[in-house]
């Protein structure tokens, strides 16, 4: 057998697979950000907090209503999406005509407030959430032990990502959405309710974050700062992939997960900086990001 820089191939395959699993969270979150930025021109800094709310949603449903993980997977994103709709209706819609910076400041402020409220109520060390019984255990793949739940995370995330890409890029509804970003007035003239479409799009992007939160709940502690730890990385992913590019953010999400995973083997100390190094390099060479269009 060959060794790659002193790492046996079994270990390497294992790390690649783990990278893909972490990448699925990056992909789902950056996809939501890309959808929101693409159609609303808003840099949604609340995304991390909304991801955290998704995880807490699952915890509340189990704790207070006794509803299982599978119910949470449906209900929690819907509820989080609904809070997104309310935020869009009450606040964000007033900002579309202004500079990006205002939307960014508003969503950043909302994120700080939300996280502060949760921390005040539930402390920082987080709440336990068990892996659903159907997904307990795992399989020995020869080169690593793969917990069933992690396999489920990759499958769920890939399905959601590809479905979203298909709807936006390949269906009639998606074409309305894309047209509305190019020229809202004209699309409205054809009798399409553009403001409602934008509201629902924001709600959908936020629901994606909530969905990722529910997926994350059994793996990580359900803690108020779980989102803020992740969101900075996800923003780097979006920047690398190119703001607003749907497929770009999916591919970059998975790809960077893998790169980060490999860094954890070769030089673990740098594992939380490697993505930013790549971001700097990409910005130097392609300022619009790997998949971004320069306009």
């Amino acid at each position, binding site marked *: 057998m060959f060794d790659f820089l002193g790492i046996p191939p*079994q270990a390497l395959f294992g790390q690649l697979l783990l990278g893909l699993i*972490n990448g699925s969270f990056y992909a789902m979150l950056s996809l939501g950000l890309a959808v929101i930025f693409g159609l609303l021109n808003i840099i949604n800094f609340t995304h991390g907090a909304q991801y955290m709310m998704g995880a807490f949603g699952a915890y509340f449903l189990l704790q207070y209503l006794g509803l299982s993980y599978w119910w949470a997977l449906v209900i929690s994103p819907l509820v989080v999406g609904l809070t997104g709709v309310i935020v869009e209706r009450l606040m964000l819609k007033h900002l579309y005509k202004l500079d990006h910076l205002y939307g960014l400041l508003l969503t950043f402020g909302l994120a700080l407030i939300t996280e502060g409220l949760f921390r005040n109520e539930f402390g*920082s*060390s987080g*709440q*336990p959430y068990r892996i659903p019984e159907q997904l307990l255990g795992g399989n020995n793949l020869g080169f690593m032990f793969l917990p069933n739940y992690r396999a489920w995370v990759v499958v769920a995330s890939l399905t959601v990502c590809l479905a979203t890409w298909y709807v936006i890029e390949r269906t009639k509804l998606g074409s309305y959405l894309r047209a509305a970003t190019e020229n809202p007035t004209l699309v409205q003239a054809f009798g399409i309710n553009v403001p409602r479409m934008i509201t629902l799009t924001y709600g959908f992007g936020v629901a994606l974050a909530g969905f990722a939160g529910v997926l994350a709940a059994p793996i*990580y*502690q359900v803690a108020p700062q779980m989102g803020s730890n*992740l969101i900075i990385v996800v923003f780097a992913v979006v920047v690398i992939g190119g703001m607003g590019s749907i497929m770009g953010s999916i591919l970059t999400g998975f790809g960077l997960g893998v790169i980060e995973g490999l860094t*954890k083997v070769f030089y673990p100390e740098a594992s939380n900086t490697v993505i930013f190094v790549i971001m700097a390099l990409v910005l130097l060479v392609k300022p619009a990001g790997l998949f971004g269009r320069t306009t």
Partner: protein
Amino acid sequence: MKFTRTMTLAATVALAIGAGQAQAQYSDGTIKIGVLTDMSSLYTDLSGAGSLLAARLAAEDFGAAAKGMKVEFVNADHQNKADVGSAVARQWYDVDKVDVIVDTPNSGVALAVNQITREKNKVFLVSGAATSDLSGKACSPNTIHWTYDTWLLANGTGNAIVKTGGDSWYFLTADYAFGHALEGDTEAVVTKNGGKVLGKVRHPLNTADFSSFLLQAQASKAKIIGLANAGGDTTNSIKQAAEFGIVRGGQNLAGLLVFLTDVHALGLQTAQGLIFTETWYWDMNDNNRAFAKRMAAANKGIHPTMIHAGVYSAVTHYLKAVEALKSDADGGAVVKKMKDTPTNDPLFGQGSIRQDGRKIHPAYLFEVKKPAESKAPWDYYKLRATIPAEQAFRPVNEGNCPLVRG
């Protein structure tokens, strides 16, 4: 990141505004205690607001008001950044007339504040930070390291595990001063007892996903995976180790620094069977239980950790020393008085403080109960062994502390 910098700036500005109301010193009637801790991140529950509360309770129980001593409190969030912590400490000492800083989890921040406190001749009472350097090569005539340290954790837990057959280790280490100190101290214990260290991996502070590191630990075939980290890092490692079948595969986890709040966050189902060392547990005697009841009532039900108890004990002893001296102006003199006086408080009982600034008391080896053994919320530990005070901490001549050399 830009935002972090902006936030730091905002925090500094907020502090500067607060500085307008500078208070007089005890000589003018006020003792000002600064609780510098993590109020927003992974160490908040095990220290944080609970530490401020414990310090207040200590002053209340001491009867400071009745004795004519005016005690005031300030607190700040150091965000686990040594530069933020240093800026707050300088601000407090120079402008706000703070006399003593207490708690300060995060060894990196504590080492910085240790240095500043010495320069300004104030007092630093460490309960939250772990590095044994605070009473070793970084020891200071102005600092007392109160509750626990990495040497204690390493020896208490490391000895017990190596002696029961856990003789090959792999470390998961938080990549900063505390993790390095804990790893180094534990490695020394393991090798001294004839064990081997097969490898180690250093992860950034506040990591969410440990699966990659756990897989490397699994591949090492070490019998024991030593977690040289704390707070949220430890709970995430333990939770994900269960997921990846590490324990079922025949390897065992050694949580080198585990707090009550970590066990609470994990739940007994995941945490059961963990062995670790602490110096205080709320359910050991009536005094501790009474303290826990008061703390929990005022702190969202969170039962006090050993750090909270340490803050209470340290502030109590500090106030005694200041009362005896009738002055808090000379930090070095106050610490000297504290060292000369035997300690005695409801939570830690009788004890003493060594010349290197190490507070001495017994330590306990605990095991986390099985879910069936726990009779009430927060009923989590059973006592496995008591380590007498004179064996619990590093011998005074082995720490390379300049204060005791020669």
